[in-house]
């Protein structure tokens, strides 16, 4: 049984005008203990929405309208809010985009970590909790005594690490990190990724890395879920995605990234724009921009086909040679 199995997840956003936007549809994937999944796609493709839906933390207009989120066999979508609160952080923790602001500026770092521990009843006393907080900070490379400082006294990279330490406080089974390295400089980026990989190894932590940066995915992820316009384009192991991509979008995406081994090739960009959620094409969501589109593509959305073991593609031409 997989640690986390998501089946056919669908999320809508309600609008003032009445008709809801179908932001995410038919998303399925699974995650095993100690493995890492990369969630990639352009801005607005729905990857953050999927992530937030897992913990039921969508904004006020968000509605999960279909699917299942099976964590250790239990469907999280069927839990009450109170039950869900016990799952949050304790079983599945999250590091948000722009984590620099995720910390309360008028409370010490330590107190915010302690809060997580005491709320989930994981510390025998406040002393013990503070001790543990110190250990967690050391784990991410921050001297324990600095726990008594305030967020504004930390640098951006340190705050990011502190937020990761806080996320690990309750020994979660899964850690979801949304763009953990955006807005950080390259050196810090490398440090953070190394840290996450190390944690994955040592703690058997399952990792979901949401990012638009394929380089990070290639570095750190075992499986990759490529999203486009709110649906899954391709879902396969990292090797398969990089070596034998089958979805036209994935192929173009890879072409858009500079390849160190072929420095002279021009970068290809994909003409056109991502689909507007209030004006979705009737067929495949990528069809308007696809370089290999056929008439059938505009007629109805393509089903997800498993072209090889664990390699899923949503394209009518999935089995054809690229």
């Amino acid at each position, binding site marked *: 049984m997989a640690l986390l199995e998501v089946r056919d997840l669908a999320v809508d956003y309600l609008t003032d005008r009445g008709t809801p936007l179908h932001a995410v549809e038919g998303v399925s994937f699974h995650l095993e203990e100690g493995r890492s999944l990369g969630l990639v796609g352009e801005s607005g493709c729905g990857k953050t929405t999927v992530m937030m839906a897992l913990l039921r933390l969508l904004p*006020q207009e*968000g*509605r*999960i*309208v*279909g*699917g299942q989120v099976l964590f250790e066999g239990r469907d999280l*979508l069927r839990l009450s*809010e109170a039950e869900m609160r016990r799952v949050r952080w304790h079983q599945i923790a999250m590091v948000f985009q722009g984590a620099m602001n995720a910390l309360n500026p008028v409370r010490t770092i330590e107190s915010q970590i302690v809060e997580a521990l005491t709320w989930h009843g994981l510390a025998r006393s406040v002393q013990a909790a503070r001790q543990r907080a110190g250990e967690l900070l050391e784990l991410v490379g921050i001297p324990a005594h600095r726990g008594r400082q305030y967020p504004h006294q930390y640098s951006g990279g340190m705050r990011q690490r502190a937020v990761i330490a806080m996320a690990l406080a309750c020994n979660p089974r899964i850690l979801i990190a949304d763009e953990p390295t955006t807005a950080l400089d390259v050196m810090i980026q490398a440090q953070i990724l190394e840290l996450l990989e190390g944690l994955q190894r040592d703690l058997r932590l399952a990792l979901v890395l949401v990012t638009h940066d394929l380089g990070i995915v290639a570095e750190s992820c075992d499986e990759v879920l490529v999203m486009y316009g709110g649906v899954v384009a391709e879902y396969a192991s990292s090797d398969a995605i990089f070596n034998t991509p089958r979805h036209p979008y994935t192929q173009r995406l890879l072409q858009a990234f500079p390849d160190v081994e072929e420095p002279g090739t021009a970068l290809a960009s994909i003409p056109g724009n991502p689909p507007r959620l209030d004006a979705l094409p009737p067929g495949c969501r990528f069809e308007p921009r696809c370089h290999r589109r056929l008439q059938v593509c505009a007629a109805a959305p393509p089903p997800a086909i498993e072209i090889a073991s664990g390699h899923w593609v949503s394209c009518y031409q999935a089995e054809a040679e690229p």
Partner: protein
Amino acid sequence: MAAISKFVRNPMGVIGTGMLLVVVCVALLAPELAPYDPQARLQVTPADILAPPDAQHLLGRDDAGRDVLSQLLYGARVSLIVGFTASFMSMIIGTTVGLVAGYFGGRVGNALMRVVDFLMVIPDLPLMLVIIAVMGRGLLNIILVIGLLGWTYTARLVRSQVLTVRERQYVLRARAIGASHMHIIWHHIFPQVLPLVIAQAVLDISVAILEESSLAFLGLGDPTLISWGTMLNFAFERAISAQAWWFLLPPGFAIVWVSLSLILIGNTLDQIVNPRLRSHHLFDARRMVNIQNSG
């Protein structure tokens, strides 16, 4: 303009405007509407003193036998005049000070803001009491005192807005191509500042009206004019033991009516000019999962 349509769609704004229009009409048409001349010398009998409402005097009579309703209608004039004039004065002074302090900065700017801080710290009503007691009662004095003490909030507001706008791209570009200060202030900075100033000015009018009524209630109103505050001053001193509620309550409610109308308008303008986020993270999440089961 987009702002006007937003205003019209907001019930608070519409109600407030309606309420204000009523007062303005009353003030303008007081001579037509009032059944009696409130300042006329009357022949009164003792029975007329503090007489309760009847058919001839819908709101009864005051401690000198005069018609309360007529006084009420004329009282609107003083409130509106003081309110609008004092607020206008505050608006001009405050905007000028804020623009200068924000745009030019430096020692002049700092000195100006010290003056602002200084005026903000001194308690308003005691200061006004003392000044009017010394300078003498009169409409002009009241307007001056309220206007000259009320500009500080606007000044702060304008200055902080100017500081923000001053660093924007289009201003920096204008300076780079050698545009004069006046040009930049007038064309780039002032339009960004004006909406906030107007929203604040409307609220300032209500504050001015409340301050005038407090001064009048405490005995410092213009003795030659009828204002709601002076009515309440007489009513409180002479009518309260007689429980003449018709003399006591209408002027007060009139003050509430006009200041509430301005507050509603001002609040609506503020919402338009300073749009706030419409939701936050702490909502009831019970409706988030909405899976329609089919069988």
